[in-house]
């Protein structure tokens, strides 16, 4: 495949997996948790690197899952000790992120792992870091990892679709039916961390937040059905990834920044023009009875 083709494929994979996870994030009102995890994943990656001294996919994934779980456990713990939920998210992620940055600045500081790279990603290098696989031939490592993550995400969502639905919309009912709500919460947090770290290498920490939250919020304005919302959210993710890439090439600017901006445009269009909950629709037919 061509160079641009690999980049587009990478970006689309990011858009798809983030879109699916994001839809559940929005419904569970945990958008800012995603922001927090996308920052603390940095600490996980740095610690994994300091322990193993190599930047391989598996170690980074494990480090990221650990960091993500640590974040959600700490947030939960402080919250149970009387700190507001919002404030405890703020305390945890900024502190862990600062430790990560300081470790990079003082201990690591080399070409493989620097702060700017982790914030903005380097999608332009993706097509060159290839690995050999049986049957498939040489494909970029990031594409391989992202496909794996996408398969896991889709499998977990589909396998427990009913359970996700009920724990997202009515956790109290779910608990009374005997569904392990807490366990599902931590499984979900692990999924968020895995998706974040897989997308991290390609698009950087801030872009991950954009990809997780914005397409899903846009999809939320179009439909009331979970299945449709999941599909739309993934579609919006892919569309903004591809549009962002072409805009970046056209203007010769940062690809990840431009993709984040493209998700914003998609959201703005939905916000203004969606037939159900859009601003324009509200102006055109203000007198429609709601029931």
């Amino acid at each position: 495949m061509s160079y641009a083709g690999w980049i587009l494929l990478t970006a689309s994979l990011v858009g798809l997996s983030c879109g699916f996870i994001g839809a559940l994030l929005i419904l569970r009102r945990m958008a800012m948790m995603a922001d927090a995890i996308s920052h603390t994943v940095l600490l996980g990656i740095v610690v994994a690197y300091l322990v193993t001294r190599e930047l391989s996919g598996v170690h980074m994934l494990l480090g990221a899952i650990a960091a993500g779980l640590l974040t959600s456990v700490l947030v939960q713990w402080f919250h149970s000790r009387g700190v507001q939920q919002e404030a405890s998210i703020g305390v945890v992620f900024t502190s862990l992120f600062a430790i990560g940055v300081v470790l990079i600045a003082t201990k690591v500081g080399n070409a493989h792992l620097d702060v700017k790279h982790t914030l903005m990603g380097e999608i332009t290098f993706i097509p060159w870091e290839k690995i050999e696989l049986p049957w498939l031939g040489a494909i970029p490592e990031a594409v391989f990892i992202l496909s794996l993550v996408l398969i896991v995400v889709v499998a977990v969502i589909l396998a427990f679709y009913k359970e996700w639905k009920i724990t997202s919309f009515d956790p109290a009912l779910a608990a009374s039916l005997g569904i392990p709500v807490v366990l599902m919460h931590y499984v979900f947090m692990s999924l968020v961390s895995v998706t974040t770290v897989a997308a991290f290498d390609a698009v950087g920490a801030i872009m991950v937040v954009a990809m997780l939250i914005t397409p899903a919020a846009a999809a939320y304005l179009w439909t009331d059905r979970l299945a449709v919302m999941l599909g739309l959210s993934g579609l919006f993710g892919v569309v903004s990834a591809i549009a962002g890439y072409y805009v970046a090439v056209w203007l010769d600017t940062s690809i990840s920044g431009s993709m984040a901006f493209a998700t914003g445009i998609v959201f703005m269009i939905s916000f203004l023009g969606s037939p159900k909950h859009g601003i324009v629709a509200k102006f055109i037919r203000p007198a429609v009875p709601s029931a």
Partner: protein
Amino acid sequence: MIGLSHNAQWVLLSTLILGTAAGIMGCLAYWKRQSLMSDALSHAALPGVVGGFALMGFKNLPVMIAGAAVSALIGALLIHWIRSSSRVKEDAAMGIILSVFFGLGIMMLTFVNRMAGASQSGLDSFIFGQAASMVRKDVLMMIVLASIVLLVAGIAFKEWKLFLFDPAFAKGLGMSTRWMGAIYMGALVLVIVVGIQAVGVILMAALLIIPAVSARYWTQSFKWMVVLSALFGGGAGMIGTLISTYGKGWPTGPFIVIAAACLFVVSLAFGARKGLVVLAVQQYAQRKKLRRTTFVQQSALERGS
């Protein structure tokens, strides 16, 4: 402080005042339950910083701060608009504005870096903060702006308290909650944009959140919480800046945040109100008392039988 150069002493003073102002505004934000709003606003300031730079063609702090304030305020308005006129919740709205504005800022940063060549040095330092890159003029401006915030918070302290804890009563007394809200938002944005150069857009929120949360562990009174939070913020600002001067090119922001986090851990453990140690001691005393009474009761029973 003695071994430091003249410039470094100025920088230290500015981060001290910045931390104090941030600690006070952080308390207001904490009780308005808007801790993460400061995070969203500080990220949203990046396009303004870069835009201000692009406008002037060189690093001119007043213009960049003005740009940052404008784009942070636009972000705040958009968050408010999205939340109030669609069914997207506030946290999602903050996440959207935060990431999209930051993405835009990065796009513009790439442009400007190419356009300006060598003279752009110092623009990257707005992401993680580089207090050492400040010159005396910048420091003076920071001090003036931060003092304005201190003044605003200090003069109307009673009104702020009312505004935070009983807005309905405040309205009944004839105070305009709308104006109070606008002034609060203005002061919050001011603290954020002033702090950006020293702490950076990504971690500025920490200086607003952590001191307030730490102070909460020591007292129930709002007044003392504000005082303590100001002290913690100022202390963290100074300590962090001092440490970051020991390494060449070390970013200031993360060190300030880690200093604040250490203060938080100390408060969490030893805080007089809900600190872990205090709680453990209380629990131990309770348990002992309980055991003694049951022992007394038991022996009384045995004697009785």
